[in-house]
């Protein structure tokens, strides 16, 4: 099971619930950009060149409040720092990839693709064809992000309340299905518990800094506990 086409397909398939969950957000983003008077080219340009949902929403919000460009860029940078953690987590597995492949695949490192790739690494650490699996997930996410942005831009206001359908529940249950099998040691459970409580407590911190803070805190707790366990 490691022929490229199969892995490509598998990567896309496992990303399906996350694509479904992201679709309404793309529509809302497109519609919001249109309402704000952003040109179609700029809107699609942002989705296709930046390709980072939460950063794009934050940029729109800041644009609407007439924030200065350095403020927007700095904020987007901070929001994206969690993806630095993703890339660092993957370092272990990409050491033998040619640099040009890393340069391409890095562009597509979203929450969604990281989630399914890390699930695959968790379940089949040594199965070959990771690159193709990753690419399948990446291209699926990317193309539907473009389609949903375009749809939202052209007819967003005519799809009333799509954001209220609750399709984001697909992301929630898929992430649950990815996290739970990864909870093996006591330290993993503690890490998850800390992330859960801390993320709730910090949800109103600006620009998703609560998410970053909670992740780092949870990593630190997991780390401390696993060291303790190793010492025993």
């Amino acid at each position: 099971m490691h022929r490229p086409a199969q892995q490509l397909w598998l990567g896309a398939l496992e990303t399906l619930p996350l694509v479904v969950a992201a679709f309404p957000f793309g529509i809302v983003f497109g519609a919001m950009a249109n309402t704000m008077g952003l040109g179609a080219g700029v809107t699609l340009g942002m989705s296709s060149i930046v390709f980072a949902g939460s950063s794009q929403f934050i940029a729109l919000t800041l644009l609407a409040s007439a924030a200065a460009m350095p403020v927007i860029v700095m904020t987007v940078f901070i929001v994206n720092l969690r993806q630095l953690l993703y890339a660092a987590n993957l370092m272990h597995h990409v050491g033998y990839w040619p640099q040009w492949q890393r340069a391409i695949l890095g562009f597509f490192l979203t929450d969604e693709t990281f989630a399914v790739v890390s699930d695959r690494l968790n379940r089949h650490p040594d199965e070959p064809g990771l690159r193709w699996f990753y690419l399948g997930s990446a291209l699926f996410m990317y193309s539907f992000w473009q389609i949903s942005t375009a749809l939202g831009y052209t007819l967003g206001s005519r799809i009333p309340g799509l954001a209220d359908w609750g399709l984001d529940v697909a992301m929630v249950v898929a992430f649950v299905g990815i996290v739970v099998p990864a909870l093996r040691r006591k330290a993993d459970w503690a890490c998850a518990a800390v992330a859960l409580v801390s993320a709730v407590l910090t949800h109103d911190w600006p620009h998703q800094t609560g998410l970053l803070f909670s992740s780092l805190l949870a990593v630190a707790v997991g780390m401390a506990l696993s060291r303790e366990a190793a010492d025993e």
Partner: protein
Amino acid sequence: MNEWLLIALMALVTYLPRWLPLALAGRVRLPPPLERALDFVPVAVLTAIIAQSALIRNGALDLSANNYHAIAALAAFVVALLTRHLFITVVAGLACFAALRVFL
């Protein structure tokens, strides 16, 4: 404000954190404690995202029975514990959510 310049800069600060560690892989050896810490990244970040998506509704903590996202997440959690299977977990969670929507 030049919108295209903004997009270029946003793209840069988005791409660099996604790519730099990948580029350095195999060239720099991370200290072992840092490597062990990075093992916790998927659980930490994904759980934080789950918490904020399922438990925070309309900007506030919602632990009521009206929070179908949280109930679906809980159902998915139980099914995931029992099956450890991603696809079954997703289907069960979505079915739970749909049932709540339709019947309540």
